[in-house]
């Protein structure tokens, strides 16, 4: 029988939740990296035992961790080229933690500035890795979305990183601005059929697409409207919270924007709103059913000023029509006094025949629905605030 492994990043460590295909009895492993902020963990689709993890701290900065045995053991993969991977006494080296913006004359741009909260210009400063996206074809190739917003790539299993500077050098950088969580590149979606095509999203700049593996980028924000920026229809400056796609239909994108749930049928060239009958269209997460490309999920949050569910009732909403018509899913979810948030990378789906849907909350709960959203149950209730949830479907 197939198994699932849920990778949970929290404010105070990482947890790995494992179950067989029934998804009833769970084994909890962790905390891994106890006390550290674990923004994201994600496994390789081609080598599920290969898992990358972003470990960070306001005190000590960024650490990249890697596991080659499904999360049982971890190590820092970094070492300078040509040097042994460990020190003489077996310890790993620290090159993997080095994220340096490309300022080289050949491929980089001079360090540019972005807009600060008060509208002044501010230099780019690396803070942390928000999202790690392994290549769908090669376990040693992995992308990192970072704050301040930029995209980095490693082709040596996370040992070293280089910036794909065409994104930051696109020319609109001075108009990008940080959202409440910082100016983060939080979404990386790779077209599995054509890995040269990558979508990314930045809060608050918007969505971008490359067709050449990251050399050049195009802003794909037409149709987005954001009332909090001087020109609501601007080319960039939109606070995109998350973007999701179904691997079988890489031209169809779904977006949870700050406000508004959006859809594009032409790879982001044009968006239209599909919020429909949602009780509020503010939120952070959005995801697509593993087998039904028109079935999508969101968790409506009351407003940008009140980051919790409406009326204290935690709800997932499902649309089976790719948006506009939404169904409230409540079975097994809190009916009252629930004031948690569900952050942008904290929802995932598995690939079992009956698609499982998972999400984590800032209250430390991780919920699982083994039946595509019809019913829900908590896997764990009392973890630290959940930052990210990913799931691996294993043979």
């Amino acid at each position: 029988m197939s198994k699932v492994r849920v990778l949970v990043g929290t404010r105070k460590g990482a947890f790995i939740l494992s179950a067989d295909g029934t998804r009833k009895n769970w084994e909890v492993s962790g905390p891994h990296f106890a006390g550290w902020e674990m923004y994201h963990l994600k496994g390789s689709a081609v080598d599920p035992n290969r898992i990358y993890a972003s470990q960070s701290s306001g005190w000590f900065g960024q650490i990249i961790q890697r596991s080659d045995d499904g999360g049982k053991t971890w190590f820092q993969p970094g070492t300078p080229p040509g040097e042994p991977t460990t020190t003489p006494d077996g310890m790993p080296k620290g090159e993997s933690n080095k994220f340096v913006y490309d300022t080289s004359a050949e491929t980089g741009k001079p360090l540019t500035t972005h807009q600060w909260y008060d509208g002044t210009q501010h230099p780019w400063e690396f803070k942390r890795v928000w999202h790690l996206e392994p290549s769908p074809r090669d376990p040693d190739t992995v992308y990192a979305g970072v704050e301040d917003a930029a995209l980095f790539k490693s082709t040596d299993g996370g040992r070293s990183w280089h910036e794909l500077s065409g994104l930051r050098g696109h020319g609109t950088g001075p108009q990008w601005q940080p959202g409440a969580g910082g100016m983060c590149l939080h979404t990386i979606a790779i077209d599995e059929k054509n890995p040269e095509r990558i979508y990314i999203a930045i809060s608050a700049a918007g969505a971008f697409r490359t067709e050449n593996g990251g050399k050049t980028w195009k802003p794909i924000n037409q149709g987005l409207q954001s009332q909090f920026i001087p020109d609501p229809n601007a080319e960039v400056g939109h606070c995109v919270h998350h973007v999701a796609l179904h691997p079988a239909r890489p031209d169809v994108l779904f977006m949870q924007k700050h406000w508004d749930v959006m859809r594009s049928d032409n790879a982001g060239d044009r968006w239209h709103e599909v919020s429909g009958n949602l009780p509020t269209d503010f939120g952070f997460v959005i995801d697509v059913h593993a087998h039904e490309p028109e079935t999508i999920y969101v968790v409506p949050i009351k407003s940008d000023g009140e980051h919790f569910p409406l009326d204290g009732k935690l709800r997932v909403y499902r649309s089976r029509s790719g948006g506009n018509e939404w169904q409230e899913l409540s079975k097994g979810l809190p009916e009252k006094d629930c004031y948690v948030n569900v952050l942008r990378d904290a929802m995932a789906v598995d690939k079992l025949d009956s698609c499982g849907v998972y999400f984590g909350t800032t209250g430390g709960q991780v919920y699982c629905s083994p039946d595509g959203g019809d019913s829900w149950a908590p896997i764990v209730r009392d973890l630290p605030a959940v930052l990210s949830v990913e799931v691996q479907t294993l043979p």
Partner: protein
Amino acid sequence: MIRVVLPPHLRTLSRTTGELQLEVAGPVTQRSVLDALEAQYPMLRGTIRDHVTLQRRPFLRFFACAEDWSHESPDTPYPAPIANGEEPLLIVGAIAGG
């Protein structure tokens, strides 16, 4: 040998417990101590000072002989009790963390 006390998270990261002992070549300064520390424990590169600029990370401070040496030049020699191992150099988080 000089003695260094790391904050708990960096002890975990470096897989060490208690005080560290380091052999430092030449004058014992912030720079030479961190060079020796990072050479012996490379996983700590970037956690105490920036990878490239070598600037102290803003939330970390250095205490020597009960005095704050965080803002001294990285090349200022530490007091003799640090240099001869009588007292440890303390690397501490600057603010309490939740």
